[in-house]
């Protein structure tokens, strides 16, 4: 496949505003690969940065597998849709890794309209000793060549290259919000507000539309798709969440099941629809449960029980009385993600003030932690934080009104096997791990 050229398009210069200079660094997605060796982040500027875990060394056991930058590349550029007079943002909405099948790493990255398959490979040898050109690449004068030699591979400094192997474009009218790789490792789905398309990883010029909730008359639109994910083991099953707070578990061979909790009329307010919109849906690693995140809660659903969730966790219920101001400052539209740990015993999600929350499903204990420079000296233990809701504020507590709503943790990811988490706080990435004994 032809490589994606790195030429800056003419559009780029006048579409990018000076204001976007720092905005481009805002991290928009984080994802561990399936072994946990690599961690990818995508940002608003369309770049992907991949971190690799250092091999644990016996000589320095305390440097237990730190993550360092492995590769950086520009995945998406801003584009212009001339037909609709619309700018297409380069912001990376989602990254999903493919399980490793050879020496190279593959990931899918997507912006609002286009999904790309990237191959990340290492080069640590290069051939030297060509006959027709010298080491600088200059062509040798043939008359000076008196003998033939076979080029030999010589070691060189490690170079990590990223090349775009596939570009899956022109299949979405609306904005892509999620992608998910199938367990068959041959197909994936891309999801926008109203449709879900199924692709084969090898074929870029066509896809199958498997879900379409666009009404015949757009004025009758009442809900949109907010997220979709394939089941981790069953290649025919996927789930998608809606803005109305329901989840549909779909079997591509037959029908779908709807998961919906009846609304509690006592909590009805102006903003009930907004806060019931599901921002993220994730299957458990076991495939037996689903987790959903709406504005104030995280819910765990048993796939066998559609009428109500198995567990409901309050993330920041103290915001319930502040919905009006959160609506005015747009925070009520924030889309938080949620994530399982490797054994499905703990779930994690973000909040405001750079807080993130973890819930232990077995002990029913929860903790609030903060991702900030002041509190995160290397190897320091994170101190649990507490938000004070009542009148009396204790010394270490923070009151609801002092929370910084511009500091939000929307994107988090958990290592597939170990207790290592990556948390994106605006333009900073924090990596925390279990303390070493």
């Amino acid at each position, binding site marked *: 496949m032809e490589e994606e050229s790195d030429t800056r398009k003419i559009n780029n210069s006048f579409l990018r505003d000076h204001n976007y200079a720092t905005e481009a660094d805002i991290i928009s997605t984080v994802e561990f690969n399936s072994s946990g060796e690599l961690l990818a982040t995508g940002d608003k500027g369309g770049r992907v940065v991949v971190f690799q875990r250092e091999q644990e060394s016996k000589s320095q056991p305390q440097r237990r597998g730190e993550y360092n930058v492995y590769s950086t590349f520009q995945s998406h550029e801003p584009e212009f849709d001339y037909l609709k007079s619309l*700018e297409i943002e380069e912001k990376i909405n989602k990254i999903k890794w493919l399980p490793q099948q050879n020496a190279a790493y593959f990931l899918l990255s997507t912006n609002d309209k286009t999904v790309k398959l990237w191959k990340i490979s290492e080069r640590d040898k290069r051939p030297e000793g060509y006959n027709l050109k010298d080491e600088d690449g200059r062509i040798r004068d043939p008359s000076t060549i008196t003998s033939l030699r076979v080029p030999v591979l010589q070691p060189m400094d490690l170079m990590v290259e990223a090349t775009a192997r596939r570009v899956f474009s022109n299949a979405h*009218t609306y904005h892509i919000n999620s992608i998910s790789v199938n367990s068959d490792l041959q197909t994936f789905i891309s999801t926008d507000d109203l449709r879900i398309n199924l692709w084969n990883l090898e074929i870029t010029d066509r896809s199958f539309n498997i879900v379409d909730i666009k009404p015949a*008359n757009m004025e009758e639109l009442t809900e949109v798709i907010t997220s979709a994910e394939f089941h981790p083991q069953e290649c025919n099953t996927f789930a998608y969440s809606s803005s109305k707070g329901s989840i549909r578990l779909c079997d591509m061979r037959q029908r779908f099941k709807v998961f919906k909790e009846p609304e509690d009329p006592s909590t009805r307010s*102006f903003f009930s629809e907004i806060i019931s919109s599901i921002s993220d849906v994730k299957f458990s690693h076991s495939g037996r449960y689903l987790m959903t995140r709406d504005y104030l809660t995280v819910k765990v659903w048993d796939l066998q029980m559609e009428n109500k969730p198995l567990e409901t966790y309050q993330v920041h219920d103290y915001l319930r009385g502040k919905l009006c101001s959160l609506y005015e400052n747009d925070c009520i539209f924030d889309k938080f993600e949620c994530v399982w740990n490797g054994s499905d015993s703990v779930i994690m999600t973000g909040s405001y003030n750079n807080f993130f929350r973890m819930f232990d499903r077995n002990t029913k204990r929860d903790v609030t932690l903060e991702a900030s420079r002041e509190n995160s000296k290397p190897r320091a233990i994170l101190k649990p934080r507490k938000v004070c809701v009542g009148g009396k504020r204790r010394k270490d507590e923070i009151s609801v009104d002092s929370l910084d709503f511009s500091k939000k943790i929307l994107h988090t990811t958990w290592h597939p096997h170990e207790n290592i988490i990556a948390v994106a706080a605006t333009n900073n990435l924090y990596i925390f791990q279990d303390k070493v004994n």
Partner: protein
Amino acid sequence: MEVSAEAKRIMVVALGKLYSSRTQRGGLRLHRSLLLTLVMKSARDIYHAAQVTAQSAAPKCEPQHPAVNVITTKPAAAQGLQSPASHPAEESRTADSSTELRCSPHAHTRAENKENVYPSGPAQHSRKRRGKAAAEPDFLPCKKAKLEQGNCHQQLIVSSVLSDYVKCSSELRTAPTPIPVQTAIAAC
């Protein structure tokens, strides 16, 4: 009334957000626009309900003229994509409230009747955006008067395909300018 004041404020904020989202980079976000529309609808319904109860409680309706006008002109701004002459049933429902202002004693009961005739206003009739003549009840003489007098709905041409999108109203903003119809979001 606190509820109606809050409802009005929520609607105003929703309008502002809908309007500013048009110029956002990356184009209109369908999900966000849908949520704003839903909030505006529920705020509007609550505002209407609060107004009706307030007016049934208090005989005078003068002080509420400006407030009710705000409400009535906003939903009356129908889809600009269709012919401006279309009159959705909802417009007729809101025109009722404006008739209240002019013909006070019995219009009040008429408005109440309208509430009964169209019991689930938003659910049923807001769907009928492309109001044909049949959808427009013809026992509303004041509606024609409203058309001659108020040209708000023609100024408020909505380019979105979602219902209840209103750019501005003369009550809310000082200088309503006609906004040309642009490509609709995802109108495909």
